[in-house]
């Protein structure tokens, strides 16, 4: 085990939590990510390899699957984001690469993103002040990419109408957090 100490995207030693009446905003620093892109002409092998790892089919455009230990969502044509717990899967990219072999291109993405989970009965009221996703139309696992606080973010539906995860580029975590908290203050 190496001796470098990690910090969160908000540059703290532990994850930030903000609670409001009807909404909790929880920073998540415990997720590993790896992107997977199918190689040209080898889409089927890539899908089969990924399915063996995930225990589920690679999701269709705009969709995602939640699972243990792996979850996955579609991020672009022939491209997916796979996630798992960081503690147990710090080298998630190697695991995915092993599963798909030469049929897929895999890239470490864990620290490319910051993640905030928003949960509560007033989620919809806050989210509509932030971005244009239509929360009512989202089902479990669905992912929509949208502009939020002038950034391109992923909005991942974890529980319809109740809970989403928002991913933004890690370097802007402070601005995203500020935006989320201000919107929650404004509504709640």
């Amino acid at each position, binding site marked *: *085990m*190496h*001796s*470098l*100490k*990690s*910090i*969160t*995207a908000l*540059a703290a030693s532990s994850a930030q939590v903000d609670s409001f009446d009807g909404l909790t905003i929880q920073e998540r*620093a415990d997720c590993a990510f790896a*992107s997977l*892109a*199918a*190689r*040209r*002409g080898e889409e089927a092998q890539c899908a089969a390899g990924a399915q063996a790892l995930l225990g589920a089919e690679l999701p269709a455009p705009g969709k995602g699957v939640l699972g243990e230990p792996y979850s996955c969502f579609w991020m672009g044509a*022939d*491209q997916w984001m796979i996630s798992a717990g960081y503690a147990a899967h710090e*080298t998630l990219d190697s695991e995915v690469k092993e599963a798909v072999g030469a049929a897929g*291109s895999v*890239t*470490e*993405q*864990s*620290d*490319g*993103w910051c993640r905030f989970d928003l949960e509560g009965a007033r989620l919809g009221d806050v989210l*509509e*002040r*932030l*971005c*244009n*996703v*239509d929360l*009512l*139309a989202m089902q479990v696992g669905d992912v929509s990419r949208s502009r939020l*606080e*002038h*950034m391109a973010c992923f909005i991942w539906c974890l529980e319809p109408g109740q809970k989403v995860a928002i991913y933004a*580029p*890690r*370097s*802007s*975590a*402070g*601005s*995203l957090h*500020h*935006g989320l908290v*201000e*919107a929650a*203050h*404004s509504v709640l």
Partner: protein
Amino acid sequence: MTEVNRLDGGQINRAKEVSFTFDGHRYKGYEGDTLASALLANGERLMGRSFKYHRPRGVLTAGSEEPNALVELRKGGRQEPNTRATVIELFDGLEAAPQNAWPSLRFDAMAVNDRFSNFLTAGFYYKTFMWPKAFWEKIYEPIIRKAAGLGSISFEEDPDLYDKGFLHCDLLIIGSGPSGLAAALTAGRSGARVILADEDFRMGGRLNSETLALGDQSGADWAAAAIAELADMPNVRLMSRTTIVGAFDHGTYGAVERVQDHVAVPQEGKPRQIFWRIYSRRALLCAGAMERPIAFADNDRPGVMLASAVRSYLNRWAAAPAQEIAIFTNNDDGHRTAADLIAKGVSVPAVIDVRADAPSVAGTELLAGAEVIGTSGRLGLSSVTVRLANGQTRKVNCGALAVSGGWNPNVHLTCHQRGRPQWDADLAAFVPGTDLPVGMSVAGAAMGQLSTAQALSSGACGAATALEAIGITASAIDLPEAEDAPISLKPFWHVSGGKSRAWVDLQNDVTVKDVKLAHQENFVSVEHLKRYTTLGMATDQGKTSNMLGLAVMAELTGKSIPETGTTIFRPPYTPVAMGTLAGRATGKHFHPTRKTPSHRWAEEQGAVFTEVGDWLRAQWFPKAGETHWRQSVDREVLQTRNSVGVCDVTTLGKIDVQGKDAAAFLNKMYANAFAKLPVGKVRYGLMLREDGIAYDDGTAARFAEDHFVVTTTTANAVLVYRNMEFARQCLFPDMDVQLISTTEAWAQFAVAGPNARKLLQKVVDPEFDLSNEGFPFMACGEVTVAGGCRARLFRISFSGELAYEIAVPTRYGDALVRRLMEAGEEFGVVPYGTEALGVMRIEKGHAAGNELNGTTSALNLGMGRMVSKKKDCIGNTLSEREGMNEEDALKLVGFRPVKSDETISAGAHLMNASGAVNAKVDQGYVTSAAYSPVLESSIGIGFLKNGDARKGEIIRAVNPLAGQEIQVEVVSAHFVDPEGERLRA
């Protein structure tokens, strides 16, 4: 003051009295009042002054179309100029001040302008103020500017917050009058997602202002019941105080919700207003109609009002504009007004109706076939002069005159995509045309369906039809019986023959005479009329005046109104506070801030930060005792060159390129060759635009046969990625290449200087060979640090020193920089910022943003030979055009001042050693300059015509902005270690 004109009834909350001030006087009103209704109830008719002549003006309307009653609301940072008294919801402690009046509203010195109105006609300015020439800017214009304008701002920062938001719906219904409510009930009961928006704080539209019954209920009661039902539907969102301000493409609407304008101070943290972007599948415009005035002599006197406004004040707000109110009309609405007034006990001395065959009215005298030809009263109306049908004149005493010239359907939003309204001869008005915004339909009075019964049925029907188009079935709903009177109107626009001016545009002081003058001078098209006279260009955008102006022009040209033209309306429907459109994206939050992995650490070191795009980067790290930034920067440079320095370079773009065709793909993207780059090696690459101009440079590191990591400049990371995706998807769609950005995933630090290797050896795990042989210049590889942390190592150098860049997962970046500092303590390691980075790259003659300025080619940059002629790459064909390969083309060279204490400035222009100094003999320009602590001299690099061949020549660098002209020697841009021995050490 007392509420001398307050009546019984109305929809105000008499249990809640509120106190307010206007023009320094204190008044009382009730919750539910507007500022205008409360002032009228208090017997005040004078509310403002006009724009040009400062004529006394009173309220004309009861809505957002008001041209006259503009006030400055609130004080300090919350001061809001040009606010319509007719839509200001009264709250306790409200303070409003008149504007455009000095020293007071009642006595306005600028009213003297009115005396010179003979001079100040339309187009007056264009014909004069030209003599003498210099006087326009020095004398005339400042006077004009000062006299013009309306309200004023305080210049304090607005303390309130604004939000933005996004909504989705199947059907957006705009307006909650009878048609809007019928539509909302129809759509709501069908289960469709519905938004019902209305600008008023009380929904119901004209139902709240009329005494007409719906079934066995009053209109207001029926509306209240409908709203209550809608409020209980989870699929319906009721948005009062919400103006739909614009209809944009593909069903997108902009809306302003005034969340807390009706309180003195918004609740802490909550927005004053919200700007909503509404995504609708269908929209139904139920915006009603606006009554229009008739122009006659002195028709601008306070007390002259629209008849519908009089009914609103009377019925909704229980406020009589005066004790005696006469009527002037060309249709039956005037008569309805008289009946309502009489029912409320207000005296109606006469109904003046231009129609000779007008029906009689009970309880008052009808003057049929008569016209109002004048008014009198100093700051408010006291009487009107009437020309009777028999030609005789008669004076009628009254404190207010209710005027009705008919109704204009509220077509504004139908025009926002340049739709053109059509003329309806029966209504004598424009109705929505056939070229509506896609997805929009219109119902009720906005469509010309002026009776209440028509409004209800067209609203219900319109909703059902709109929903059917998107596959939602809505059943018909039961509608109450309602008034269904036919239109009875004689088109009549202005009274001719009056002695005084007849006002068309009340706010901008445009008269019938001005329209005539425009016609006389051939400004006959609607566009010319509007621009020449300023008709319709005031804060009301001509809602009550455009039609009138058009009608007068039609009369003059002898054409029909539709032949004369139509006026179309542009967004926004009513003016929108800029704060609302800005939302929270202001001040420090204008753009997101990107922070580097070492940001917290750098803050602890007291770093000075600078903006690089959205990034904040450490610019330099001052040490105790350093009083000038140059001291810090010189120290950072020297210490790096003498020992070792560390710099966070995470901001450079990083793109992961994988696939069997990755090398072939990069060969297309870069001007130079990449196909044969060995695994474990890095190469510098230059990217061209298709036009042959260089736009970015960086490195590509080959980690495997099918895996590269490309770096870009900080500024162009997004652009390079976009261009690569374009090439991948659109130009070479069958290449096996996959791309993803990894800029943020890795914290990357440059470790530079003679001791860089020694330092890194203490941090990189010992199993990795960092010797010059084991890890030579331009090597790359995966390593581990600090006992097993994954890392990437690149031996590349921007500074020209022995240097590496080391990357770890971003979460460990903070720890890594601390570790590097600790490990480097024995070498006196320094952190260095962008400033030292810049100095060192100028010392090495590396091009950066100032050189890659979008107009320079590889040839200009001295890299012409890098552009491969043996392969296809983006930009190589067009880079061969003759104009880009001329003999005296600009070439990148270096400059040193001849006198060593002189300073070269970036942005200086280059001139030959002797001769003229001007643009015609310009030889080039200095792009970047710095003080080199190594050379102990100012140095610069830049582009010089045929520069390659001019090394050793003495030329002049001129900076006339600073009155500077110095002699410089043309030298190689590689000031330090031109052979590159240090970086290979």
